[in-house]
């Protein structure tokens, strides 16, 4: 089966699941049910797309297939902001906060953090990428400790509000944010699309990329920004999903067996949509909402991650 054909199969599969999700068990007020379901679909497509694309980009840049963008500490920034709002102003401020304001605050702080991190580090010439990842990881751990410190101090009832935000959930999606999130993700995707071939070269590693005339530092800097935007937007939309990108990226590598990013990116994004829509179908129809999507994704992802580690160890 050619790679083009595989993409077609995935598109058909994704569309099939979307149709199933929209029309299965259609009862009551059709208008209302269809609208609420299509809003969920749009959110899942956006999050699936952003999570998959950001992970593939990040792994290509670092030449490492078991890293995820979460190691630069963006989810910790997200949790820190949620906790700090509750800690300083009380949980009602967080729950009553307008969606747009909340989105701006969350996405803004994550993107702001990345801009600061990169501009500070890239300013000193010749810094390598791994140094930046390391600093991000240390800051992320620091934010996590700060977050848990504040969580110990607050009222347990308030903590339960924060706990809700710790796991991604499609059920309480913020519909008025779909447009701005969609636009940002589309812009990031368009930029990526125009640099597909450079991504192919980047997967050869830094030295080969420079030898073949890729402006390595500039390209990596921009790609890191793209990754930050994708991760921030999707996290602000539904909350942090840890393993999701890692699974779909690796499934795509195994399925396509190629270096070409036009297939890898499209494939990972489609697998992302399939996983989210399929997972949400399972949550709604099998578990009847007794669990959330991210619990399922994290469990499947955790098992797959262990499998990857064991497999990689054997390869070395």
């Amino acid at each position, binding site marked *: 089966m050619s790679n083009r054909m595989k993409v077609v199969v995935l598109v058909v599969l994704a569309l099939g699941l979307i149709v199933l999700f929209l029309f299965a068990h259609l009862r009551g007020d059709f208008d209302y049910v269809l609208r609420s379901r299509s809003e969920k679909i749009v959110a899942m497509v956006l999050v699936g797309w952003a999570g998959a694309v950001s992970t593939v980009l990040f792994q290509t840049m670092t030449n490492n297939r078991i890293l995820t963008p979460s190691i630069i500490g963006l989810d910790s920034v997200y949790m820190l902001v949620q906790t700090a709002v509750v800690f300083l102003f009380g949980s009602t401020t967080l729950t009553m906060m307008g969606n747009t304001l909340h989105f701006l605050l969350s996405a803004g702080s994550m993107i702001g953090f990345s801009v600061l991190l990169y501009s500070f580090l890239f300013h000193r010439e*010749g810094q390598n990428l791994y140094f930046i990842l390391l600093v991000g990881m240390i800051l992320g751990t620091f934010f996590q400790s700060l977050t848990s410190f504040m969580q110990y101090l607050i009222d347990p009832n308030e903590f339960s509000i924060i706990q809700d935000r710790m796991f991604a959930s499609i059920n309480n999606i913020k519909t008025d944010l779909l447009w701005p999130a969609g636009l940002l993700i589309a812009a990031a995707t368009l930029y990526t699309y125009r640099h597909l*071939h*450079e991504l192919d070269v980047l997967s050869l590693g830094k*030295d080969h990329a*420079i*030898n073949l*005339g890729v*402006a*390595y530092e500039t390209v990596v800097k921009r790609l890191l920004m793209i990754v930050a935007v994708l991760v921030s937007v999707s996290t602000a939309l539904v909350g942090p999903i840890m393993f999701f990108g890692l699974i779909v990226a690796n499934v795509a590598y195994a399925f396509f067996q190629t270096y070409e990013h036009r297939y890898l990116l499209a494939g990972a994004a489609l697998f992302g949509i399939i996983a989210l829509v399929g997972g949400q179908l399972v949550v709604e129809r099998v578990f009847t909402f007794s669990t959330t999507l991210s619990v399922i994704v994290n469990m499947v992802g955790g098992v797959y991650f262990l499998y990857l580690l064991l497999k990689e160890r054997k390869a070395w």
Partner: protein
Amino acid sequence: MVEVKQVLKRYGGKTVIDRVSLSVPRRKLTSLIGPNGAGKSTLLSMMSRLIPKDGGEIWIEGKEIARYRTEELAKKISILKQSNHIAARLTVHELVSFGRFPYSRGRLTRQDRDYVREAIRYMELEPLQDRYMDELSGGQRQRAYIAMVLAQDTDYIFLDEPLNNLDMKHAVQMMKVLRKLVDELGKTIVMVMHDINFASCYSDYMVALKDGAVVCEGDVSSIMSDEVLRGIYDLDVRVQTIENRRICVYF
């Protein structure tokens, strides 16, 4: 013409390349020799803009290296480092096709395909061209990388220990190919060499580095002598002439 002028490189407070000047003879095979830590690889990496320099100038065909657009430079010089681990799964043909990236930015034209086919033929990789890189032996893999450099079609080729991990037979094969590139295609090759006798038998020009400075340079006969080599390596060596080749005995 590649000319290195007063080039400087520091790591932390330690100077690893101390104001090195060098001019690379055209259409010749030049070997950089010297003990471990002399700065050979560092110098080669700076000459091919893989790492930035901390001072001095490197001129390539009348233009300073920092003033080139990197994609323009990729059509003039190519560099191959000693360890080449590639995470992506590639066939030989796909790898060699990457050599055309500076010209086609990923959309291969008919002419690009001709260059790729020619490079594969030149390195005698035709039977292997659809095999994946991780299925090849060390020597075959090294040949595939050289084929990629060939497809890049640059006048200057920089190689960091091209004989690394090759057995005697494949090392000789590799050196004969490099010789052919210089003699038949008129390429200028600069390479870092550890095996002094391979350098002696196949290069036209030798440059010896020690502690980040050039200690001597010249044609093979002027470098391959007892006193000069003893000075470079701090080792009691004897140079003998066997079948018109200068062989260093250092065991």
